[in-house]
């Protein structure tokens, strides 16, 4: 049976949960809303509760997810999402807390934020943290705005370029553009930044150097202290894209590496669930000199009570409707408090161990462009399969047939036919071995029977989907068929 959208089911007279009848004295809408134009039609689904529930549950099982198996998307840190985190975020006092409460009426919620900011500052080695940005990209923007405000406060507003390595994530240059800065791209050398190239790029217009550490190849810049020193010497600020903090928690603190500001992806390092695309949370941690520029409001503790303070004239302003993705902040604090200092240390240790184990094993089968030890992730190249007419995309699709998710592919852009693999620390040795076996088998198939790869996936709910057609036809919403077809007797779908 063809899967139907909810709006293709049910119909007039089918309906879900009931609402109460109004028990206040009811008056006609026209009287309550004088001058308002009421709408005539609203074409939303009309189905019974049982059918609505089934629809979404049926859809759910079409997804791969972390509770099903390995999800080795490089740069995404798909680790175990503990259920206790969700439970705590759902406590009524948190879930129903209103963001415009009086400070005295939300001390619990504010306490969570304050504790999280404190812990993140300790973990990253910075002086202060804002938890307002809703995701990593917004964290970048916030950090860059603070850098801009800092330069301006020193009369250096003419600094308007940001040096970004070619291995950087796309949000970096996009955020740079958003604050009105320009990106200066520097090429990597042997996978890491060349000091010479950096020195050459730095000048009086440089506002910041923006780095990902470990970088998107999973490599730790060996001369990182020199990099931040050079940046500072040139009057620039050093920005850390902290998406890969998972490799560093408990091992080294970014603040100690000479950075001035960084963002943190709670939905990566701190295990908040990805929700099929979001929500995340992108707190920004800063060194002391940037603290006056933090977004408004900031939290201050006085006489044991927490207060939201707006009186920060140098602040870059507000970046979120309220206090950021609070529900994610709760989860992150539960997570890091569950682990504690030793548990956090085991995070980076486990992540690095797992990645290196998998890298060495797979390097026997796939090309490994950068052979040094990796941190929490590594990048292979599928280039060698090209001669069999097989692309990295085919490898990715074929992996789906083995019940594991594919790695990130074609990123970072500097590796040809890239396969970017991040197993995370919560995967067991058994899982890593199963994954490696699947990868090895696929490499054999590429030689022996490449068509299997090109036809993959075969065991998934749908076969390979035509992305080109999607982009050409651009059907991005359902529309009711113009000519209502006569209703087929067995409720067959009303749209072909």
């Amino acid at each position: 049976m063809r899967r139907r959208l909810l709006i293709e089911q049910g119909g007039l007279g089918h309906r879900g949960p009931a609402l109460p009848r109004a028990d206040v004295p009811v008056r006609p809408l026209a009287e309550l809303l004088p001058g308002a134009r009421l709408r005539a039609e609203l074409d939303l689904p009309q189905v019974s509760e049982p059918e609505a529930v089934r629809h979404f549950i049926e859809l759910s099982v079409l997804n791969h997810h972390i509770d099903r198996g390995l999800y080795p998307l490089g740069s995404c840190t798909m680790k175990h999402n503990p259920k206790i985190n969700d439970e705590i975020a759902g406590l009524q006092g948190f879930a129903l807390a209103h963001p415009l409460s009086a400070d005295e009426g939300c001390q619990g919620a504010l306490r969570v934020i304050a504790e999280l900011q404190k812990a993140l500052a300790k973990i990253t080695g910075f002086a202060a943290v804002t938890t307002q940005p809703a995701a990593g990209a917004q964290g970048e923007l916030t950090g860059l705005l603070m850098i801009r405000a800092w330069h301006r406060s020193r009369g250096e507003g003419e600094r308007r370029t940001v040096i970004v390595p070619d291995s950087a994530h796309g949000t970096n240059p996009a955020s740079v553009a958003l604050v009105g800065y320009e990106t200066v791209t520097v090429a990597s050398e042997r996978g890491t930044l060349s000091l010479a190239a950096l020195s050459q790029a730095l000048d009086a217009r440089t506002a910041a150097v923006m780095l990902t550490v470990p970088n998107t190849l999973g490599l730790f810049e060996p001369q990182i202290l020199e990099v931040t020193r050079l940046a500072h010497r040139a009057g620039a600020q050093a920005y850390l894209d902290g998406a890969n903090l998972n490799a560093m928690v408990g091992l080294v603190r970014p603040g100690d590496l000479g950075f001035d500001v960084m963002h943190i992806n709670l939905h990566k390092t701190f295990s908040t669930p990805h929700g099929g695309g979001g929500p995340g949370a992108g707190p920004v941690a800063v060194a002391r000199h940037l603290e006056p520029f933090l977004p408004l409001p900031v939290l201050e503790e006085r006489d044991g009570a927490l207060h939201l303070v707006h009186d920060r004239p140098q602040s870059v302003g507000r970046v979120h409707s309220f206090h950021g993705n609070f529900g994610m902040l709760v989860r992150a604090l539960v997570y890091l408090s569950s682990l504690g200092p030793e548990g956090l240390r085991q995070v980076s240790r486990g992540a690095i161990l797992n990645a290196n184990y998998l890298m060495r094993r797979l390097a026997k089968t796939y090309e490994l462009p950068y052979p040094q030890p990796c941190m929490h992730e590594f990048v292979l190249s599928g280039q060698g399969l090209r001669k069999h007419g097989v692309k990295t995309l085919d490898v990715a699709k074929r992996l789906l047939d083995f019940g594991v998710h594919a790695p990130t592919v074609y990123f970072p852009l500097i590796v040809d036919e890239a396969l970017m693999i991040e197993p995370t620390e919560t995967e067991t040795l058994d899982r890593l071995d199963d994954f490696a076996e699947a990868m090895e088998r696929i490499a054999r198939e590429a030689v022996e029977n490449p068509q299997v790869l090109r036809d993959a996936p075969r065991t998934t709910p749908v076969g390979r989907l035509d992305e080109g057609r999607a982009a050409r036809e651009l059907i991005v919403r359902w529309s009711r068929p113009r000519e209502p077809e006569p209703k087929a007797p067995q409720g067959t779908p009303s749209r072909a």
Partner: protein
Amino acid sequence: MSYVGRTREEERRMLAAIGVGSFEDLVTAVPASVRLDRPLEVPGPLSEIEVRRRFGKWAAQDDADRAISFLGGGVYDHYIPAAVQTIASRSEFATAYTPYQAEVAQGTLTVIYEFQSMICELTGMAVANASLYDGATAVVEAALLARHQTRRARVVVAGALHPNYLAVLRTYLGGDVAVTADRGGQCAPEDLKGALGPDVACVVYQHPNFFGLLESPHALNVLAHEAGALAVACCDPLGLALLEPPGRDAVEAGAAGTRSGADVVVGEGQCLGNPPSFGGPLLGFFACSSSLIRRMPGRIAAQTVDREGRRGFVLTLQTREQHIRREKATSNICTNQGLMALRATVYLGLLGKAGLAEVAELCVQNTHYAATLAEKLSGYRRAHGGTFFREFVLECPVEAAVVERFGRDRGVLPGVDLGRFRPEWRRWLLVAATEQRDRSEIERWAEVLKAAGGLS
């Protein structure tokens, strides 16, 4: 606590397979001088028992743990059907990543497609995206789109936009934001006219606006279009359930056939099945006319087929996005609010056409009943005379903060103290009575107000 399942023996085997003697050999790139040599100063480790105790105590400190809420201002205490939680908490939805491998993400992708369809229907627009962070950044993205599209810089905010949204807009856009004065809480089209000019990229208005009042969307749209600017409406989905959507052209078009529908309709979708959660995660939505689709920020799902012709859905137009377009991307957004969009889809799917309209009407009835009661109380009066929808501003005989405190102590959160935004609003209380409130609660609220009105 540790979520790592590994024995010492396994670790030994792994190190041997890697070909190093110890873990230290793997991290030599990290300068020894900065390696952490002491435990992090963070709380824990805590067992789940201890987590529940510690966080449970904190949660109980919040008013929300017990009080009845009349708070609004962008986030509301709405009914969430039990099935929404059941579905949204399934690992399949909650723990999946962005649907990069469409063949194993048809659950997420189909839901995004359904979400887009529903948002289009509600707003009256042709296309919608998969979500943005919140209402505030949705307004920002709309303004940015208008600036790119028109190659003009200035953004005119018409009337009472949520002060926090305005603040975020200013953070992103700096000095390029102008605000028209409001008259009695609403934007008078004449005032907008005066603010328009050839440098204006778009007109942004909220409808119903921050004070709960209806604007005249089609008149504002026409004015914007006549000035060559885009019209951006920021709407409450519950308003869209009952009111003619600003995105749709009205019967009476502007002069010389100027389109009277908005070009972009954005807003905050928290009210659709998402808890207040102290203001986040929220749900920014973004819809626009089809001609603007290539400038739209964020992810878009589209219909296609697999090799056997079966319908399926994929992310499309990724060339707009940062991971391909980098500094030229339409936006820097990457992670969005997918799970909130899912909740909204399930919510709308469950309540459907009839249910959503009933929710909206209950809010209208309850809020108007509250207003009627309040206006009978000595010293209280509505601050504005215009038509309000599901919230209204009440001017109090004492500072709103006094009423708020008085209510809190009695288990009633009587409204948002607008003095928090501007000193001249310090006697203003923004009041919303959602479908979750019943008559007896509203009457209790009125009693609290009455008693508080006597304080000074």
